[in-house]
């Protein structure tokens, strides 16, 4: 059952209860009203009838007294008065009969025993009144007959009896009035009882209706607020950031649909939170990268600024050195002209030096020739020494062979052994002498070689010196020429340097512009870095926020 149906059913039940209660109350009120109406109506009718009886009796009495009076005046009663009295007596009798009938009828349909009793008493009272009337009427009739017959004295004497009967009738009528009053009182009490019972039943019905309403309301409330509390706590958890759970589905009614919807919502929120977290993390990473790149850019701008500064300083140096170059060039020009004069002097000196070199070379060549002849002689001596050495070697071997033969000869070879020993000694001496000669020859040869080498080296040096002298001469000539050329060149350098100055001034202006642009770039980079820092801070805050949600 859906919630609306339940609520509607609850309200319907309560409404039905209220309607039932109202109908019952109306019905009870109607009963009360009808009872009260009946009681009042009957009592009022009884009072009217009693009054009618009293009035009729009074008119009857009046008519009788009138007839008596007329009769006393006229001496006889008038038939009209008697007829009048007869009519009125009939009216009184009719009223009495009506009263009795009414009492009997009301007694049968009275609402309670008290009323029945009262109507019975009223009926009895009416009968007593009837009895009194039954005694009064004939008495009154006899009186009237007497009057009619002209018996006034008898009529007057009958008056006392009639008065007695009339008093009894009045007393009975008074009792009937009393009974009617009591009947009214009983009727009032009966009305009160009916009202009390009706009120009690209405109250009981009201209490029952309230109880049923409370039960129905409690049931509906529980069936609605229970799931609603669950949903509220679930929503509270979602509000705190716990997106990991889901709520219980209570049924197919609106609350069940609400539960399904909440679960769907949580799934959606979870997805959104995940995406938000991913996006925020990406944002954080991107912000960090931007920050890093802005910082790099700031660093590079700073480097650029520094480089511009260095370039400006270098340009200043270049300007300064350009001025110095001009100065030096002019000095060089002056020096070159002095050098031209000096080169003439140098040429003369070189020429003299060349001539001296030639003379030295010729002498060195003569010395070399002598040394070569000496070397050849030494070579010859070496060959002789080799021959002597060979002889000494052979002598050595011969001596050894002699020793061998002497050893083989035994005792007979002793003198030969001495000869062999002396021969070996001579051979050793010759060998030693040849060794010394060879060593001395070696020294001589080395000395000759050294001299030859020195001489050759001297010749080479002389030749080299001659070459250098020629080179110097040609160099001096060339130098003079170059100096002259350099004068022109340096003059051109001076002109170029002046032009360079102009270019450097332009470069300086351009550098200043670059410096300004770099400073602006640096400022904008700082702002960018600041913005990147703010972005990073924001992304960190977002990360912190998304961290709240547990998925």
């Amino acid at each position, binding site marked *: 059952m859906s919630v609306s149906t339940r609520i509607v059913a609850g309200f319907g039940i309560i409404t039905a209860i209220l309607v039932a209660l109202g109908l019952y109350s109306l019905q009870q009120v109607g009963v009360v009203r009808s009872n009260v109406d009946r009681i009042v109506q009957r009592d009022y009718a009884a009072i009217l009838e009693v009054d009618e009886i009293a009035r009729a009796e009074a008119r009857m009495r009046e008519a009788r007294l009138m007839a008596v009076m007329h009769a006393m005046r006229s001496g006889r009663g008038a038939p009209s008065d008697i007829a009048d009295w007869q009519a009125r007596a009939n009216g009184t009798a009719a009223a009495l009969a009506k009263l009795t009938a009414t009492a009997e009828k009301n007694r049968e349909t009275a609402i309670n025993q008290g009323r029945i009793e009262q109507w019975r008493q009223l009926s009895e009272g009416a009968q007593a009144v009837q009895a009194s009337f039954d005694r009064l009427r004939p008495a009154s009739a006899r009186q009237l007959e007497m009057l009619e017959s002209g018996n006034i004295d008898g009529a007057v004497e009958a008056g006392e009896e009639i008065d007695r009967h009339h008093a009894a009738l009045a007393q009975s009528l008074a009792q009937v009035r009393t009974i009617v009053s009591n009947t009214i009182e009983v009727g009032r009490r009966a009305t009160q009882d009916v009202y009390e019972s009706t009120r009690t039943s209405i109250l009981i019905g009201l209490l029952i209706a309230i109880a049923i309403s409370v039960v129905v309301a409690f049931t509906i409330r529980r069936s609605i607020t229970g799931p609603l509390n669950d949903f509220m706590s679930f929503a509270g958890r979602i509000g705190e950031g716990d997106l990991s759970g889901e709520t219980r589905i209570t049924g197919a009614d609106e609350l069940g649909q609400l539960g399904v919807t909440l679960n769907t919502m949580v799934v959606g929120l979870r997805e959104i939170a995940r995406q938000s977290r991913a996006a925020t993390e990406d944002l954080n990473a991107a912000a960090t990268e931007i920050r890093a790149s802005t910082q790099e850019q700031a660093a590079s701008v700073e480097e650029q600024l520094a480089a511009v500064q260095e370039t400006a300083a270098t340009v200043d140096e270049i300007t300064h050195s350009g001025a110095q170059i001009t100065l030096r060039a002019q000095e060089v020009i002056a020096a070159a002209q002095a050098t031209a004069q000096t080169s003439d002097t140098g040429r003369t000196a070189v020429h003299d030096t060349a001539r001296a070199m030639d003379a030295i070379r010729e002498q060195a060549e003569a010395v070399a020739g002598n040394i070569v002849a000496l070397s050849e002689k030494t070579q010859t001596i070496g060959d002789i020494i080799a021959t002597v050495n060979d002889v000494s070697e*052979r002598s*050595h071997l011969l001596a050894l062979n002699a020793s061998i033969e002497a050893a083989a000869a035994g005792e007979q070879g002793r003198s030969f052994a001495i000869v062999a020993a002396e021969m*070996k000694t001579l051979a050793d001496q010759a060998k030693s002498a040849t060794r010394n000669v060879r060593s001395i020859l070696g020294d001589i040869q080395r000395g000759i070689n050294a001299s030859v080498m020195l001489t050759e080296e001297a010749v080479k040096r002389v030749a080299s010196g001659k070459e250098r002298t020629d080179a110097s001469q040609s160099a001096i000539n060339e130098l003079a020429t170059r100096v002259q050329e350099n004068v022109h060149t340096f003059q051109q350098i001076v002109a170029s340097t002046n032009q360079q100055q102009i270019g450097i001034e332009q470069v300086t202006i351009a550098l200043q512009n670059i410096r300004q642009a770099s400073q602006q770039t640096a400022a904008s980079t700082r702002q960018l870095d600041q913005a990147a820092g703010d972005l990073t801070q924001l992304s960190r805050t977002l990360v912190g926020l998304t961290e709240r949600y547990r998925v």
Partner: protein
Amino acid sequence: MSMPGDLRVAAPFLDAEAVAAVLAERQRALAPPEAADQRARTRVLTWTLGDEAYATPLADLFEVAAIPRVTAVPGAPAALVGLIAWRGAVLNLFDPAVALRLAAPEEPGRAMLVLRHAAPRIALQVSAITAAAAVVDRGATGGDTLTRFVEADDGQRLAVVDTALLIQRLLARPLQEG
């Protein structure tokens, strides 16, 4: 060995070493023989093979000479250097370094020792022939060693080669008879 008070002798064309050797020899010749030393002396010939010095008894030698032209023999043992035509005969020239288990000298020897061996005729290639000397030699020990140490008169220790054993080892393979 020079001592304080020695006269310095100089001779033309002789260096100090040669002069000292001549004087030492004359000193030995003129000195009386040592009475205590009555041991028998053997005359040996000292020679060198590379840096190593050896000696051979003179009795085992026939002749010493410079090495003439050598004719190599294909398929010969490693110790055989080649054949030499000497005084009308054919000599087998050996390199004793193999038998003495020495490394081959950097330069081949220029002198040879002709042994007293009838057949085959054997000569040893040596680096140089130094001199003849007298040593106290107790003879071969009888073992399988090719060399034995002896003391010369000048105190020098020499390695004397056992000629017979050397020949025996060199002739381990058939040779040319000459």
